[in-house]
């Protein structure tokens, strides 16, 4: 049967992992912020900023890893804005987050247009190439599906492990998990609530920006308007789906990637009698269904969205 054939093809899994990569960065970033108690709806704009800044740096002559660094810094910058507004100033995280998304998106487009006023087709850069790891890349199936991805995909997978280790195995992670549940517990033990939260939002936002940078520097080779196309919002939903756990975040992102890769292939198989929009909707509909199943018993970090002020308990 065709469906089985699709699922068994290495090229299908290669595509699924590639599509999942920006989501892995994004979900990890969002879950770090939310574990510390701050919802970061700036994610969509931070994706855009990361995509633009990373690409622009390479286009201006920086190396690819230099571009990654610039993207991370751009994310950190917008994360810092969101953190200052929501943590010490205690403003609404929803309002601030949407504001950051609008600001970061518009600033990215503005910068792009200002730097390139006359181009009609977006200039291209030389993006990350698929890895060719001796032996591993030659393995049947998994060699193509996993070990022929780009270095940024590998980085995303490593970051899943690193984030999990930091959250669950280090004193820092313990403090982050505590500050998202009850900030007073952290303050009473002599740690800084503001420091932890601002730090988590800044680091989380850098990861989100890497998700954007992957799109312009690895998946594609240029920056387009509207290219983020809701990926940030998908990450916010996947964070709930993942119950704020890095391992489950990976599974959620892969699942979404698989849906997306699947619909493209299904479209060519049965596209004759169903409009293509139905297939484009499929990953989102499946995400919503998965969310309904999982999120009903979701165990939100208890201090999520709740501002905390010094000297108040």
């Amino acid at each position, binding site marked *: 049967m065709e469906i089985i054939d699709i699922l068994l093809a290495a090229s299908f899994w290669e595509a699924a992992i590639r599509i999942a990569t920006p989501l892995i960065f994004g979900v990890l970033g969002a879950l770090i912020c939310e574990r510390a108690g701050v919802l970061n709806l700036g994610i969509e704009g931070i994706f855009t900023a990361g995509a633009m800044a990373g690409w622009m740096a390479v286009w201006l002559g920086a190396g690819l890893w230099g571009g990654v660094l610039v993207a991370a810094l751009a994310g950190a910058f917008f994360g810092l804005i969101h953190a200052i507004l929501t943590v010490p100033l205690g403003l609404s995280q929803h309002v601030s987050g949407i504001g950051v998304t609008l600001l970061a998106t518009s600033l990215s487009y503005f910068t792009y247009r200002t730097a390139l006023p006359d181009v009609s087709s977006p200039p291209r850069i030389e993006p990350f190439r698929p890895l060719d790891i001796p032996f591993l890349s030659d393995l049947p199936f998994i060699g193509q599906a996993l070990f022929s991805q780009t270095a940024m995909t590998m980085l995303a997978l490593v970051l899943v492990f690193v984030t999990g280790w930091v959250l669950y*195995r*280090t*004193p*820092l992670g*313990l*403090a982050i*998990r*505590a*500050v998202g*549940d*009850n900030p*007073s*517990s*952290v*303050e*009473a*033990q*002599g*740690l800084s609530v503001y420091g932890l939260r601002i730090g988590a939002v800044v680091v989380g936002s850098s990861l989100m920006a890497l998700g954007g940078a992957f799109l312009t520097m690895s998946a594609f080779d240029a920056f387009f308007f509207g290219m983020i196309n809701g990926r940030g919002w998908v990450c916010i939903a996947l964070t709930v789906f993942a119950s704020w756990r890095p391992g489950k975040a990976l599974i959620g992102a892969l699942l979404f990637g698989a849906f997306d890769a699947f619909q493209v292939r299904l479209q060519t198989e049965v596209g004759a009698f169903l409009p293509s929009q139905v297939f484009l909707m499929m990953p989102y509909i499946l995400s919503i269904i998965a969310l309904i199943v999982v999120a009903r018993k979701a*165990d939100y*970090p*208890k201090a999520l969205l709740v501002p905390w002020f010094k*000297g108040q*308990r």
Partner: protein
Amino acid sequence: MSSAAHTPSETSQDLLLSLAGVTKRFGSLVANDAIDLTVHKGEIVALLGENGAGKTTLMNILFGHYVADEGTVTVAGRDGNLEQLEPGAPQAALDAGIGMVHQHFTLAENLTGLDNIVLGTEPIFRLRRDRSSARAKLGELMAGSGLNVDLDQPVYKLTVGEKQRVEILKALYRNARLLVLDEPTAVLTPQEADSLFAILRKLAATGLAVIIIAHKLAEVLAVSHRIAVLRGGAKVGELKTSDANHKSIAELMVGREVPASRRTPRAPGKPVITLADVTIDRGDSRRSLHGVNVTAREGEILGIAGVSGNGQAALAQLIAGLDKPDSGTVEIFGEKVTKFDAHTFAQNGIARIPEDRHHDGMVGSMTVAENIAIEDVRSAEYQKLGFLDFEAIRKRAEHAIADYDVRCPGPDAPARLLSGGNIQKLILARVLEKSPKLILANQPSRGLDVGAQSEVHRRLLEARESGAAIILISEDLDELLTISDQIAVIHAGHITPAMPTDSIDRSELGLMMAGQKAAPHAPDGTTTTKPGETA
């Protein structure tokens, strides 16, 4: 309860903490007025005072949350030399060995007890955590103090008493030499409170100094060595516990004689509400009732004793008309109720003093006047041509403020600015002015100070005098035994038959609340539901 056995010496060598002339002003308000206080090793000092007397401000200064305007805080260093504590630095207080157990626990519920204790005690940027040495140290501490708790359980699974133990362990793990407990028994059952006191005595015997902030006199007399009383920001008295008695301290705290609440004998009238074999099954025992029989009569206070979370919420919801029984009947003045909604019940003269006065008793952003009128906006009294008559509402509120001594800037002040005691007075005014037939009073004096508490009791007794039936749901045995005519015990959704208060033994009541003892046979032959029958 016996007074503390160990009397610490009070030589200057044992001096641990000395506050001298501590003054703190907030604008024109003097929260602390030149307070002196000393604490010695191995001593349990009770800091007593009504809400707003300045206890919490003083402790916040000690902890560096506030900086005092005048005065000094001196702590004996570990080498015995007295050193001034750096003002405004919580870390300095922690380093000096001062540990605090707040009334609202500062625990992250998603973490285990162990994680909460270790949090912040190790360098934060490290690749892994070291648990074995922490475990060993905590094992010793638990063995030495009796503070037993499963440290590997996430905190949300622990009982309130166990959470408190984790809080105390947290302080001890940091080598606290002075432990400050803010209202530690407010959330405990009488049994848990007794076991806490035993632990505190044991810890004090090993040299730990303890300051316990309290307003329940019986507890203070049972556990402390010395009592310091604050009133209106100033220290108005300090005495050895052995020289103190209930009456003398109460007067020091309130600054006047506290009228003892007394019931005068009164023959009960006809039943106002009768629950017959009522069952509400909501799956968990907090919200369920099982075959409950309750009758409240005119001119009688029926006390419902029980540890919270045993079905009181279900009972209160039912009597307020907010829920309906799965089986069994409810009769109001002998008529079977068929329509369960709050409006119908209120029309029948049922008024309620809700358990959570801030959340269910008022709307914080609305004014005092609006909160007075809020339950009766449909009545003609507050309307003019179908619109709200704000003039009438205001007048009504001004009367209430004067009659019930509600301390507030005025009828137009937002209700959230009021203190807990004044909010309760506001609710009392709203409830009692309607001359209700039945008052459902759910934990009416919880968290109130002695003065406000006695005011609540006086008002309830007045309502009883004028013929209202009162159902008093409470965890406070003193309150129940003082003002109830009859007491029934609720445990795991079962309610015992009501027993005349005069025939009740205090310790048996405690056991029945814990589900460890069945009620004696009902004198009138109604079926007895055994507490603890189901879990």
